[in-house]
């Protein structure tokens, strides 16, 4: 039964391929959501389905379908939209979510206000969550909604993840303070005038908050240094997004007006977040690298010191609209290192005009033999990491590969030649003289 449904879904999604965006890593999505709440997120889910994703729903109380079987992830992406559930199932623990990432599965996590295992999970990503029961609160701008439901205006290009203009987003949930992990990518910052506090504290002046923070020993939970939605890209390329509250995805907030007659940006925003998390946007990969002598074409097993070496990399970007990898020449800051323990050469790897996706540079190999590596290590926030390492030994010249007949060496050549000639002359004269002597001796004897 189940597989039949899946096939149907697959067929549906195939039908949608032609027009809609696609992920570069797969279409199967597991959504863990309370069945009672499922309809509240219909706009979000339908949007995903329209894009061609194949959604599987699972209640937090049910154990099936399992996410990891035999060390293989059953889904390409996972959405955890049941924040308030006490636990998400036996096989969904913080540990298994980290394991999902190591299996290159992408995850969207909606964080709960209450204490839950997801707090421990967030801590592993250098995210610091406020104490339980303290959502983000803002009294500005003045509005008729509760103080915990906040409209957050999104500046263009405030995060690399958001690629288009987005109208203000309604947010309700907890903020996250960011640790110093460079892999974190804040997507939606909390407004400057907001703070996290228990809802009962309604007086909420800044001074009181600071005092409370220091007395309570909980630190300062206020201002735009907090993040409402945070992305994280693991070193293996898997992406995870922490959303402060599940309401951001809800139909209610999607349809709510942010300002008068202006619909909120929630629909676009969650679409963008999902697009980034599910490896649609900002996905690059190195197709291949090649190296050869400047005047050659074939890669060599080893290079000789001081050789002029040309190195090229071919980089493609995922085009979600067409669903294919396309050569990409847009990187301006790509670098190549030629390293042995330390980089001996570090040079720009610029795109080649007229050859889409090709980046190439030539340099002189160092005057040092050893096992070198061509290293590309391109890490930019939001973009997938480009890492490549090609090992190649650099060897000293062969015994007959050294330069010969140097003009500077002429004194030595002259020395060798003159000695040889002198030895030859001396031997000749000596032998000739000896012969005459012996003749004389013989003559003398005979006489």
């Amino acid at each position, binding site marked *: 039964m189940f597989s039949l449904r899946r096939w149907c879904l697959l067929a549906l999604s195939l039908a949608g391929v032609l027009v809609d965006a696609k992920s570069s890593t797969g279409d199967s999505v597991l959504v863990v959501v309370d069945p009672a709440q499922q309809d509240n997120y219909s706009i979000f889910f339908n949007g995903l389905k329209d894009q061609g994703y194949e959604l599987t729903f699972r209640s937090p109380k049910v154990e099936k379908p399992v996410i990891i079987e035999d060390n293989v992830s059953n889904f390409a992406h996972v959405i955890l939209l049941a924040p308030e559930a006490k636990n998400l199932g036996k096989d969904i623990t913080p540990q298994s979510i980290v394991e999902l990432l190591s299996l290159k599965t992408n995850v969207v996590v909606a964080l709960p206000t209450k204490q839950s295992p997801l707090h421990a999970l967030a801590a592993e990503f250098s995210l*610091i969550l406020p104490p339980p029961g303290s959502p983000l609160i803002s009294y500005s701008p003045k509005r008729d909604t509760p103080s915990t439901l906040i409209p957050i205006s999104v500046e263009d290009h405030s995060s690399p993840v958001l690629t288009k203009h987005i109208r203000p987003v309604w947010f309700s949930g907890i903020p996250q303070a960011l640790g110093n992990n460079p892999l974190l990518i804040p997507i939606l910052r909390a407004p400057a005038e907001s703070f996290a506090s228990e809802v009962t504290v309604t007086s909420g002046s800044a001074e009181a908050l600071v005092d409370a923070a220091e007395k309570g020993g909980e630190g300062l939970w206020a201002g735009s240094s907090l993040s409402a939605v945070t992305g994280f890209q693991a070193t293996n390329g898997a992406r995870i997004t922490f959303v402060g509250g599940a309401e951001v995805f809800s139909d209610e907030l999607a349809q709510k007006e942010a300002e008068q007659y202006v619909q909120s940006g929630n629909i676009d925003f969650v679409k963008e977040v999902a697009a980034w998390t599910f490896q649609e946007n900002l996905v690059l990969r190195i197709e291949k690298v090649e190296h050869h002598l400047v005047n050659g074409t074939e890669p060599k097993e080893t290079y000789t010191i001081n050789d002029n070496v040309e190195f090229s990399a071919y980089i493609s970007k995922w085009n979600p609209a067409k669903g294919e990898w396309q050569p990409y020449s847009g990187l301006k800051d790509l670098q190549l290192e030629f390293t*042995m323990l330390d980089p001996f050469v570090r040079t720009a790897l610029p795109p080649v005009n007229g050859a889409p996706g090709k980046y190439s540079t030539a340099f002189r190999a160092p005057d040092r033999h050893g096992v070198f590596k061509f290293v590309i290590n391109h890490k930019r926030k939001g973009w997938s990491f480009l890492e490549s390492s090609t090992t190649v030994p650099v060897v000293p010249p062969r015994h007959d590969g050294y330069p010969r007949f140097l003009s500077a060496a002429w004194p030595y050549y002259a020395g060798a030649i003159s000695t040889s000639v002198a030895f030859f002359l001396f031997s000749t004269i000596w032998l000739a003289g000896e012969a005459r002597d012996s003749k004389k001796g013989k003559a003398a004897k005979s006489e």
Partner: protein
Amino acid sequence: MPSLAYPVPTDLSPATVKNTASLFRIVTLALISGAAIASRLFSIINYESVIHEFDPWFNYRATRVLAAKGFYEFWNWFDPTAWYPLGRVVGGTVYPGLMATSGVIYYILQALNLPVDIRNICVLLAPGFSALTAWATYMFTKEMKNESAGLLAAAFIGIVPGYISRSVAGSYDNEAIAIFLLMFTFFLWIRALKQGSALYGTIAAVFYFYMVAAWGGYVFITNMIPVHALVLILMGRFSHRLYVAYCSWYAIGTLASMQVPFVGFQPVSTSEHMGALGVFGLLQIVAFIELVRSHVSSQNFQRLLRVFLVATGLLGASAFVFLTYNGKIAPWTGRFYSLWDTGYAKKYIPIIASVSEHQPTAWPSFFMDLQMLIFVFPAGVIMCFRELRDEHLFVIIYSVMASYFAGVMVRLMLTLTPVVCVASAIALSTLLETYINPVEPDAAVEVVEPKQTNGETTAAAAPSTPAGKKAKKPAAAAAAAPTSALSELVAVSSGKKTASSRGIFGLDTRIVVVLNTLWMLFFFVFHCTYVTSTAYSSPSVVLASQGPDGSQHIIDDFREAYYWLRQNTPEDAVVMSWWDYGYQIAGMADRPTLVDNNTWNNTHIATVGKAMSSSEENAYPILRKHDVDYVLVIFGGLIGYSGDDINKFLWMVRIAQGVWPDEIQESNYFTPRGEYRVDDNASKTMRESLMYKMSYYRFADLFGGNQAVDRVRNQQAPKNIELDYLDEAFTSENWIVRIYEVRKEDILGRDLKSANAFEKGKKRKRSKPITSRRRALAA
């Protein structure tokens, strides 16, 4: 006719005696060669035809490259898997003589359509060359005394443990062919000196070149021959024979030796070679002075000589100092200093001191390696003094120098062994000749005139007695000694008068002494066989232990682990281990290593030492920087294998301390009471070090709750060791080799310790946003 102690046949013609004697010599030499080869085959019979120890594995690997790719590829071989990532220019950092020898043998056998595996050539090369060594020693000793002494010396060198220790089958090391070359070069030098022959000098130079290409110990020849020449000059024994022999040897030998890439310009630029150059210059000066003397009156000559000597001496010394100061001549190397000051290496170059064969020799090992020869040896040297021809001086100098060096370094016992054999053979053959000689002294007895006279045979006709050729022969006192027993026999049987006032009376004395000597010789053979079979035939790659019932149990952990690496890891997986095992990993596992037995880069070794002696957190960046995938440690605690890494650990610490004195301190690895312990009393630094953790990881589990005991150190082994940055990948049957895999960085950017703690479900301490009121208000 002098009275004879026992009857000898009188009806033999001298030609028969001579022919029989030479037949006996040939047969004896053949038998000696057979014994020399056979006694080196214990290792193959007891174990198998396998390459031994450490350095031979590299030689074997290099030989395979040579055999497979040819000489030029070998010469240009850059090994990217050694000293990762520095690589090693093998062609330029190796003495290629050994590999070239095997390669040539291999090619010849191939050309003869004898498909012999290159491994078997390598395994059997050392025994084969030991037969040649016996022959070379025979030739050398023949120059010193006579054939019978030569045969004794050949027999000694053939089976003496001091030489066997480096030349059993499978011990495919440079020394395997070097001792033959050493003895043969010396023989040729003596020949050249005796005859003043440029031809022999040149042949000596050719073999000197072979020696240079084969072994770093060639420096011994480079200094031995000049010292001999210098002593001869100082004793006023300068002759044109010396001049011709030395100059032809030095000029051709030095030029030839510079063709070896590894040696290069060293013969003209390092202090070790300056002695030979100096003596060469001195010889020219002395020869020039001789020339002047023959043309100038003696009074003027004295004045001239004084001025000239002072001037050249000053000039030469100042030039040497100047060039050394300018760096044109390299100063003495550390290995050289450690020859004079045995404490030097330990202080300044721990890497040299850490090698067990560089330690000073213990007294018992002299007896172990040479047995009775060590007692007879001084007697032989004294015999040389009694005659003191030019070549005897050589033996004297050789024995003095080699005795000293053998006392300083265990491995130099090898250079002492040949001269001990030669000198002992001289002494013993003198003894035997004296006592076997049937002629009794005629002091008290009336001289009975011989009735039958052949008349033709005289002392001069006695064949091949080097003593006979010499004019400087000492007077009658030693007349009996230097001539060989056989020629004596001939002389006696032919009725020559050899009556002397000294000699041995009666048969009983003779029998007692000769039997005693024979018994000693027999016991020597017994000792050699015993030592060879028990002590020196272990390949050390395969170990053997004896069960309580005497049954042999083979411990093959090394090969088990190396083959595991070969079968289960990617080809470019880098393996880190202490340098002792580098060659074996490269040879048997075929994986890149960080450091190996070619200890050319102290810093790189110290880096490994630092990684081993640091805590996991500090070692991890070092491991990752060097792309280490696996770490291999040797642990003997389970079966009591004492040569394991924990016992070598202090050397790692010392070597690391030499480079990073701020981070690694030896004293931190001892208990407060200054003990080196591994149990619960071990110091904190010790317990946290990577080496310690890797050695004892999960060791206590093996004892199932009982007290875990380390059988090498007889201490309790620690429990509950946790590794966060490494995973145990493989442990061999007897736990001797343990291999750990280095974990990759955490994908979430955490340190592996907290990642591991998370994995085990431990709660992390709650963190807070870093802030302060003042900063908050300012913002």
